[in-house]
């Protein structure tokens, strides 16, 4: 099974307080930001790794190609990170600036990459942690005329990706769908639960370790060394026949209000309860 995993770089959501907007408030300035892999894409990377391995034997049985559309020169740090976790190949598409990369452009670029790579599955985050628009996956499927299942919590296949049984958790319950590949999936964080992925190769009773706070498995040193020798191809917009043309106009960015108030220490639980009742009035 061949899976394409798109990876966006985003400003570290853990340091959101460092995000600033420029003087006329029409864009977020990237100066001084720490870039990380979009956490939602990391979930998908982990799901893709589980779909393409025999976890009991720690053996890879499929192929993952990670693709990153990167403003400017084409930063490959996060592709290397994904290769260090076990992905086989990388593709970097240097393209424009952050503002020029809205969901429609991203979907067009990804569609062009899919046509070249012909994966069985595209597995991506349900949204990016910066823009939160949650559009690119659906738009990509539309351009490819492929089925799409959004917010997948469980993915199972027993025929190497020809067909899938997919679950989605909705407010009213769990929806189970059957879908034929090729297909676009966007994943929810529940895809990381130890039993969320069944690929017909890893024994069904295999237990993945709980990832805790992590969005995907840790790299290990052996994979990190191997990643140095794994190929990262560059595809330009010309190669892909895509032109930048933004369908979204950003009118204004406003930073959230700073938090007010301060921490207060109390000595006893009784005092806490009393304050919650009389001062905070939340009980």
């Amino acid at each position: 099974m061949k899976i394409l995993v798109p990876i966006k770089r985003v400003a570290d959501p853990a340091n959101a307080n460092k995000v600033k907007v420029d003087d006329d408030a029409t864009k977020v300035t990237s100066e001084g930001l720490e870039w990380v892999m979009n956490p939602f894409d990391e979930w998908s990377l982990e799901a893709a790794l589980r779909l393409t391995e025999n976890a009991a034997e720690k053996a890879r049985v499929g192929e993952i190609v990670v693709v990153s559309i990167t403003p400017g020169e084409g930063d490959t740090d996060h592709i290397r990170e994904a290769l260090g976790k076990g992905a086989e190949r990388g593709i970097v598409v240097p393209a424009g600036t952050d503002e020029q990369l809205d969901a429609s452009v991203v979907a067009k670029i990804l569609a062009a990459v899919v046509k070249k790579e012909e994966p069985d599955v595209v597995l991506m985050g349900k949204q990016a942690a910066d823009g939160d628009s949650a559009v690119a996956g659906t738009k990509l499927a539309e351009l490819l005329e492929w089925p799409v299942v959004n917010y997948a919590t469980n993915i199972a296949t027993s025929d190497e990706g020809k067909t899938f049984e997919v679950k989605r958790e909705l407010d009213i319950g769990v929806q189970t769908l059957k879908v034929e590949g090729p297909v676009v999936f966007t994943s929810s964080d529940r895809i990381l639960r130890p039993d969320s992925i069944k690929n017909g190769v890893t024994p069904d009773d295999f237990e993945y370790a709980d990832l805790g706070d992590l969005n995907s498995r840790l790299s290990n040193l052996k994979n990190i060394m191997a990643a140095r020798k794994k190929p990262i191809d560059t595809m330009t917009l010309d190669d892909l026949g895509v032109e930048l043309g933004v369908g979204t106009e950003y009118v204004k960015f406003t930073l959230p209000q700073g938090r007010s108030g301060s921490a207060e220490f109390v000595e006893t639980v009784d005092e806490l309860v009393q304050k919650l009742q009389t001062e905070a009035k939340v009980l």
Partner: protein
Amino acid sequence: MANPLIDDRLVDLLLRDVLQAERLTALPHFADHGPETFELYLSACRQLARGALASSYRPLDLEPPVFEGGRVRLHPRFGPLFTQLRELGVIAATRPEEVGGQQMPLTVSTLAHTYLMAGNLSVAALAWLTTGAAHLVEAFGDDAVKERFLARMYAGEWTGTMALTEPHAGSSLGDLTTSATPAPDGTYRIRGAKIFISGGDHDVAENVVHLTLARIEGAPEGTKGISLFAVPRLREEGGALVDNDVHVTGVIHKIGWKALPSLALGFGDRGDCHGWLVGAPHQGLRMMFQMMNEARISVGATAAATASAAYHEARAYALERRQGRALGERGGEPVRLVEHPDVRRMLLRQKAIVDGSLALAATTALHADLAEHGPEDARERHRLLLDLLTPITKTFPSEAGFEATALAVQVLGGYGYTSEYLPEAFLRDQKLNTIHEGTTGIQSLDLLGRKVMARGGAGLRVLAEEIQRALAEAEAAGLEEGLRAPLGAALGQLGALTATLGQRGMAGDTLGMLGHSVDYLTASGLLVIGWQHLRLATAATRRLEGGADAFAEGLLRGARYWMATEVPRVAHLCRLCETGEPSYLEMQPEWF
């Protein structure tokens, strides 16, 4: 926000600007590496440390291992954490590819180690102990011994220990009595008792291999009659693992590193404990000492790591907690602790100790890399520096780190003295570092009695050249004189003192030379940490040319603090050594 444990910005500055670790990748041994392998490895270690390791630290501290039915059972969270460390590849990270390693420079792995130790030192120590024990097998074992033990140890399937200490022989290993009797099959039968064996038994890996010092029957007395053996808990026989007559006789109740069992072990109660000789007979101590540099650098790095974790707890608390009014103010809102001058003093003191210690550990590790794998013609120089810096790298972070960790308790005030907050636990952990792998007293004798005097004082001359070069670079970068002059003066004082003490030694006045060896070691530490701050300040100054940088400002103030308050103490300590200040030397036992 969770405790970052170690400041990534410092690690980055050290690797890029101060040590220029990327240069290592030009050496054949490190050719498969690049800045991205360093960064990805550090990133994986830091994620594991800040996540799973750190979040388990307190539960493991609260529930130490249990001794039941002759076996030791660790906290249930220990095993999965150890598996994660093992799978990450930390045990063999620095070792050659042919034994299953990845040839990671010690410079990088030492910094990675600080994150892991700061996160949860008991778990990380089991991996570290295994690396040390396996390294002995790798360096000195014959093919049969390597075949039997090495791959499984480096894979972490079997863990390792160092079984040196006996109830009556700790620092004086020459007195140990564990015996080894040759057996017809070429192995030895081991009999004796060992104590303080960390990781000596547990339930998180299949087997434990004790690298054990023992005396072959008829061996010479003292340190020249000690041999090294690999003694597994279970030995392979007929394709199965059978009991090798190594028994836990007691669990030590210690004050820190609580999740890692420290045990008393009995070898050969039934006369059926097989040991495999590692290296030549009677060479055990010599081999141990060859491995000692890395272990001692690692202790220094661990001490820096614990002090760093404690500093970050204190820093976060002082930035949040409001208490009292600003000096000279009456009434108004309470201010944050960090607004009080004395709290800032305590935080800056901790930061200066932590930054200097981390820089020193990484620097010494760099010289270890270059001494072993650097250009042939420069290896001797790096070897001299490595040997000289090792006892200082072991001791300064351990001694000053204990003070820094105590300051973290102090910053938290009454809350710091409770087990609701972490600094008290870090303080308990920290104390071990001045004791294990050679106490501070032992390190001082090693430094003054051996290292600075070796080869006519060549080590100190090379160190002086390095410090002079750093001073020239600092001047070129525009560092103010107040940041440079104290260091130059202290270097001169220590050099002159060393010549005087050396002459006393040669004249047979051992007490006159070594009576104040710890003061000498302390002075060396203050100087060498001053050198680290000078280099950090130089790098910080260059960064500030690129624009405002809060981290660089902090480094500059740390350096200034060190030069103003600590480096001048070198002169006083040198005077104590030089005059042989007699108060404790004259004390008679009955006067205590």
